[in-house]
C-alpha cells in the first residue's frame, strides 16, 4: 500500500508549497489537511488538488480546459478506485491493460502535457511496475514508456528508486496491444 501522507509531502515538495498540517483520518482511512478557513480537505485526491491549487505556477496541472479538468478528475479517481484496490491478479492485469491501451497515442495522460493525473498514477503504480518481469513490461509497452518518462523527472521521483526498463525488445512475438 502506498503511504499517502508520504506521497502528498513529495507532491508538496514538487509543487514548491508547504504541505502544512497533515494527518490521517483513521475511520475513513484517508489523509486530511488542516487549513485556515476550516474547509479541511479530506481524501488523497482532494488534498492533492488543494495543494496544487495553492501553488503559484502549477494551476495547469489540473487541466487547461474544462474537458481536460474533467478528464484529470477522472484519472485521479481511477487511481484511488482502481489502482489502489487492485489486489487480485486479474484486477491488476485489467488495470494495466486499460492504461496501456489508453496510452497508445499519448505522451502524458492528457496527451502532451504533464498533469496531476500523471503524478498520482505514477505514485500508485510504482509498486506494481516494480514487480513486473521484463516480459510483462514489454507486454505493456505503452504503459512502460509512459512510466519511464514520468519517473525520469527528478523533481517528481525525488528520493525514490528507478524501476528498470529495457530499451531494446527482448522477446519475440510479444503481443503489444
Amino acid at each position, binding site marked *: 500500500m502506498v503511504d499517502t501522507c508520504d506521497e502528498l509531502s513529495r507532491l508538496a515538495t514538487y509543487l514548491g508549497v508547504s504541505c502544512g498540517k497533515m494527518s490521517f483520518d483513521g475511520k475513513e482511512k484517508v489523509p486530511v489537511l488542516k487549513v485556515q478557513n476550516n474547509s479541511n480537505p479530506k481524501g488523497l485526491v482532494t488534498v492533492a488538488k488543494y495543494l496544487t491549487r495553492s501553488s503559484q505556477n502549477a494551476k495547469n496541472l489540473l487541466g487547461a480546459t474544462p474537458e481536460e479538468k474533467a478528464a484529470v*478528475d477522472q484519472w485521479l479517481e481511477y487511481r484511488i478506485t482502481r489502482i489502489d484496490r487492485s489486489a487480485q491478479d486479474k484486477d491488476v492485469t485489467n488495470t494495466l491493460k486499460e492504461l496501456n491501451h489508453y496510452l497508445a497515442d499519448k505522451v502524458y495522460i492528457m496527451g502532451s502535457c504533464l498533469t496531476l493525473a500523471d503524478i498520482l498514477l505514477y505514485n500508485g503504480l510504482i509498486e506494481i511496475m516494480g514487480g513486473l518481469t521484463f516480459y510483462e513490461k514489454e507486454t505493456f509497452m505503452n504503459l512502460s514508456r509512459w512510466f519511464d518518462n514520468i519517473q525520469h523527472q527528478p523533481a517528481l521521483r525525488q528520493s525514490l528508486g528507478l524501476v528498470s526498463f529495457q530499451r531494446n525488445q527482448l522477446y519475440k512475438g510479444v503481443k503489444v496491444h
Partner: protein
Amino acid sequence: MKLHTNPWNFNSLKLLAAAELSGIKLEVVERKHDDKVVPYLTRNTLPVLEVFPNKFLFSVGAATRYLLNQQSLSPEDDSTVDRWLEWDSNQLQPSLVPYLVSVIGQNKPDAFLLSQIQTLLKLLNTELKGRQTLTKTGITAGDITLWGSLYPIFKPGKASIKGWEGLYPNIKAWFCRVEEEPAVQKSISVVVGGKDTGVFKDSLLAQPVPLSPPTPSSLKPDKVVADSNKKQQSKGKPEKMEADPAESQILAARPVTPEELAAAVKAWNSGKGSSPKVRERVHPVLPKDGERNIMITSALPYVNNVPHLGNIIGCVLSADVYSRYCRLRNYNVFYLCGTDEYGTATETKAIEEGLTPQQICDKYNKIHSDIYEWFNIDFDYFGRTTTTQQTKIAQDIFWKLYNQGHILKDSMEQLQCVKCNRFLADRFVEGTCPLCNFDDARGDQCDACGKLINATELKSPKCKLCKSTPIVKTSDHLFLDLPKMEPFLQKHLDSAYSTGTWSNNAKNITNSWIRDGLKPRCISRDLKWGTQVPLEGYTDKVFYVWFDAPIGYISITANYTDQWEKWWKNPKQVEMYNFLGKDNVPFHSVIFPCTLLGADDNYTIVNHMVATEYLNYEDGKFSKSRGTGVFGNNARDTGIPADIYRFYLLYVRPETQDSSFSWDDFLLKNNSELLNNLGNFINRALMFVSNNFDGTIQEMILTDDDNQLLVQVTRELRTYIENMEQAKIRDSIRNILSISRLGNQFMQANQPWVLVKGSDADKKRAGSVVSLAANISTLLSVLLQPYMPATSETIQKQLNCPKEANVVHPEFLCHLPPGHKIGQPSPLFEKIAASKMDDLKKKFAGEPAPEKKETKSSKRTGGDAAAAASGPCDPVEVARLTDEVAKQGLVVRDLKTKKADKSEIDAQVAKLLDLKKRLALAQGQNSVPAAGGNKKKDKKSAKQPASGQGSAPPASVAPPASSNAPGSSAEVDRLTEEVSKQGIMVRDLKSKKAEKSQIDGEVAKLLDLKKQLALAQGQDPNAAVGGGKKKGKKK
C-alpha cells in the same frame, strides 16, 4: 455531447439532472447492459459521456461536474466538492453498489454492507447539520452525485432503508432540497418513470461492481499474471457467495513449492498408520509425567442469572472448543467449571422467591447445567461453589495469607438498614447525589453526572427495598495486601506473557490495573450467605465474592477428585488456561494470583488467559428485563439445533472487539457456509460414492493437480493448528471452511458426474476423485469436532469412519483406504427460511431500549416502556410473580385492616404495584395505559390470582408509572368527580324507578369507582366500598 447508457442505470440520474440544470442538450444513446463503449476499458462501464467524438468521460462524478461547470454551477476550485466526489467514489460506492446488487439484484441483503453504509450515512448526516446543500454556494456536483447515489436506498423499493428519514434528519432535509429542483425531477421521470427502485435490477446485475478497499490479508501478489494462460491453482467456477473475500486470495496467493508437494504426497502415501493413537479419556483426569497437562477453566457463571448467548460464547463455549481441540491433539486435558453461588444477589432472589438461598442455588444450578448440556459443552466436571470443600480450602488459604502477614485490618463505613436488618450493598441504596443533586442516584454511581460515589456520601439515602433511612455503621473488615504482592505478581506475569497465550485485552487490562497502582482490597462482607470468615472477631462476616469465587475453581476440582492437589499445587507440570469475558480479567490476573502467591504453597497460577469482548444482540444489548435477546432455553425452543448456534457464535466470537449476534447474519452463515459450502461438499462427495460406487472407497490415483490440492489442504490444516494453539478460535473456523471450499472447487473442476458416464478410464478417474473427496470429508469431520460435535459425529457415522481418525495431526493422511465401505449419506444441514428469521427477530426483540438515563429510572419504576412489550413469556417467571402478587396483596390488605402506619402501608402498596408491573411484563402485555380504569383493572388482576386462577387477565394492562403512585392527587380529584357523577346517575335512576338490571349495572360502576378512589387515596378499598355502599343506600 452524447450520453451512452443502458436502461435503468441509476447513475444516469446524475448526468441527466446535471445536463438539465445546465441547459445542455444531451443526445442519449441507448446501450445494452453489457456493451463496452469505451475502447480502452476492459469492463462494460456505463453510463459514459462522450464529450467529443471518441473522447469519453467514464467517471460519473467527473462527468457530472463537467456538465455543471458549463454554466459555472459547480465551482471548479472548491475543495468541498472535491471531497464529496471523492467520498462518493472511494467510500460510498464500494459498499453501496454491492449492497444494491445483493438486495435488488439477488434478494439477499448483505447485512454487513448495510451496516457499513449506515456508518457512512451517520457521517454524512453529521456533516449536513444546519445546511441544505454541501457547500454554501447552492447545488453543486457534490449534491447531484450523492443524491443520485443515494437514490436507490432512500426511495421506495426493496433497497430502501427503513426509517431513514428519522435516523438521518439532516440528510432528509438535504435530499428533499435537491429533489425540489425541476431538473432533478425531470431526470427521475426519464430514468425511472414512476416505478420503484426494483427497475435497477438488470443494470445492477450486469454492471461491474466497484473494487473493495484492500483488507489487511489481501496483499498484492508478488507476480503479476500477464499471460492469462498460466495455470491458476483455483480452477473451476468461482464461488458466488464469498463469505470472506480475503480467503480466496490467500488460496491463490502462494504457488506450491516442490518441497511441499513431496512432503504432502509422502504423508498421503504413508497411510493412517502414521497417525498418532487416539487417547482414551479416563476419569479422574490427572496430570501425567512426560505429557502436556492442561487445566482449562471457564469463568464460573453466576448462578441466578439465566445465561444468554453472550455469556455462553464468552466463557463455556470458547473453553469447550479449546478443550475438545486439546483432546484431539492428545494433550492431557481437564476442563472444569461450575456455578458461582454465594453473594448478595442470591440472597435477595431467595427472599423474593420465598426459598432458602441453598434452594435457589439448587434450582438454578440445574438450569445452568441443562442449558450447557443442550449446547453440548463437554465439561470434565461441572460443579458449584457451595460445598464444604470450598469452605475448607478458602479458609485454609485465608489462614496461610494471615499467617504470612498479608491480611490487613481496617474499618469501613457502611449503610445498614435497621428495618431489613442488613448491611446494604451499594446498589440497594438510593438517594441524592452529593455532587450534582440528582435525586435518583444509586449507591455506587450517579446516573446523572456519572461520577463514582460511595453509598455513605449520598444525601438522604433510602433503603431500596423498604424505603426507610439507613444508618451509618462502622464495620471492621479484612483487606488483602495487594501492593505487597505486586513484585511477585509482576514476575509471574512477565514470564507468563512471554511463554503463554494471552489475548491482547487481557494483557492490557491487567497492565493498566497494575499501572494505576494496586491498593489493599477488602475481602470480607457483612452478609450471611457466603463462606464464613474464620478469624476471631470477624466470624459474623463472609468472604467477598471475588475473593471467594476463584477459589471455587480449586474446590470444584476437589469435589471432582481428592487428588486435586496434583492439578493445583503443581505449576511445573500443569499449564492453566482461563477463559473469561474481559470484565473478569482483573480478578483472574491480579487478585486471584496474588491470593495464591501470598498463600505461598506452590499453587498453580494462570499461564494463559483468553478473554473475549462483548457480544451484542442485533446492535443492542441482551436484556433479561426487557426480553431482548436469546436466553437459556429459548435457543432450544427455536427448533434450530445446538450445533448451528455453536457454529454461529464461534464464527462471530468477539475476540478483538465487540461483535453482534444478528439473525440475518445467522441465516446467511447457515445457508451459505454450512449448507452451500460445507454440507454441500460432504454430501455431494458421499452421495457419489454411495450411488455410483456401491458405497465403497475406490483406488485413488493422484494427478499433479490432485497433489497440489493435498498441499493446499495441508496448508489450511497447519494454519488451523497454529491458530488453535493460540486460541484464535474464530480464525480456525475459516480454515475449515477454506478446506471445504477447496473441496467444492475440486469437485467442480473434475466433474465426476460427467466422467461417470464416460469410458472406463473416466470412471476410474471419477472414483479417484470422489474417494479423495471422501477423505477430505473425514479430515473436515475431525477438525469440525470442537465446533460442532454432533455434526461431526453424524458425518463420521455417514462415513463409517474409524475412531482412530479422531486426532489432529499436521499431516493430511488417508484414513479411508480403497475398499472401505461408507455408511448411509444424508443432508447434514437444513436451510433456514427467511420468514423464520423474521419470526425469531420479533420474538426476541423485546422492548426497545429507552434512552440511557431513562433506562435506569424506568427500571426503578418497574421497567415500563411506552411501546408494546412483545418479549417471550417465561411461564416459570409468570407463575412466580403471580404468587408474589397474591402474597403481597394479602400483606397490604392485612396492614390496612390493622390500620397500620400510613407510610408503612404506602411502602407495601408500592411494592405490590411494582410486582404487578413485572408480572404484566413477564406476561408480555401491552403497557400502553388505557384511558382511565387503570386502577380498576389493576385491582382485578390482584384479585384473580388470590382466588386461585393464576392466569393472565386478558384485557388488563400494566398501569403506567407516573400516574400510578398511590395518593397522586390529580387522580384522586378525577376519581372523586367520577364518583359523584355516577352517584347522581344512580340516584336518578332509582328515583325514576328504572329497570332493576339497569340500576344494578350503574350501581356496580359506582362501587367500582369508589374502590378506585379508595386505592388512589391509599385506603382499604373494601372498607371504602362497604362504607360507600351504605352511603349510597342512605341516599
